[in-house]
């Protein structure tokens, strides 16, 4: 493996680790919007209406 490739791997690995730690510590995986939306749509069935008969 060339020196440049090693460096790129380390930088990418560090970036992914920091991103993972940020999401885990500051956001929390259970609060991710897409996950909440998916869970909500599993449990509810939205029915639109206008307040007319």
């Amino acid at each position, binding site marked *: 493996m060339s020196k440049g490739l090693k460096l790129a791997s380390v930088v990418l690995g560090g970036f992914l680790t920091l991103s993972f730690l940020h999401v885990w510590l500051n956001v929390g995986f259970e609060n991710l919007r897409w996950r909440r939306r998916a869970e909500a749509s599993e449990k*509810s069935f*939205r*029915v*639109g*209406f*206008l*307040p007319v008969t």
Partner: protein
Amino acid sequence: MKGEGIYEPVRFSGFPEIKESIVSGHLPATFMLAPLAMVLRQQGVPIKIVYLGHRDGTAMMVHKDSAIYSIRDLRGKTIAVPNRYSNQYLIIFKALRDNGMSVKDVKIVEMAPPDMPAALYSRSVDAITSGEPFMAQTQLENYGRVLYQAKDIWPNFISCVLVVHESAIKEHRDWVQRLVDGIASSGKWLEGGMDHRMMAAEAVSKQYYNQNPRLLQYVLSTPPDRITYDNLSLARSDFEQIEALAVEAGILKKGIGFDDYADPSFSLQAQGGKAYNWESPK
């Protein structure tokens, strides 16, 4: 019961927003104007009409001091409709045609139904037409007069229908059926006596419509057949009538049929169900 409590009513104030919500997939189901649903289906939106919301329940109101007493008096006047793709528009088209006039003889503007009473009061329009209770509101507040009730021009008039996204039909067929069953049994319960209608008016006006209960009580009783909730099954002949009129009025292109935009299977399965055993929350 499995699935009980899963339904989440989402209130809107205009049909354009409802249209966007079903097109984007935000809503799996909604009540919508019948011709609007047909037009969306023709445009390729994967939706199906599965049931009716009610029958009749539409009027045209004019200001009580206006000189409009017949359809012919509407010549040159401005009329507000909920949407161009509505049966309210089609009934105007029909009424004008039957009186030797056309929609070119009037000015038609689109307006959200909740805004219509104020527009009539200020006389920024000459006539308004939509589903209740906004028409009756002008009567109760003593500035509106009925020009016609839709049922007198178009018996068994259909306004709003229950539309479901095809993905919801595929993935949650049992939920759709339970919703249709619930509407059917609630309709039967509503037709079970005036006391039922009054209880419903009280509960619905507070919990869903955010309106004065007196208004809904008036709408559901004056006269008692102003709105009807039985016979909500999908009838091919009803929709073919709407389809023919919509094509004639130029709001729907030829080439779409009942089997394209409707799925009567839920409606057929709901037939024969019993009235909902409902008691008003204390």
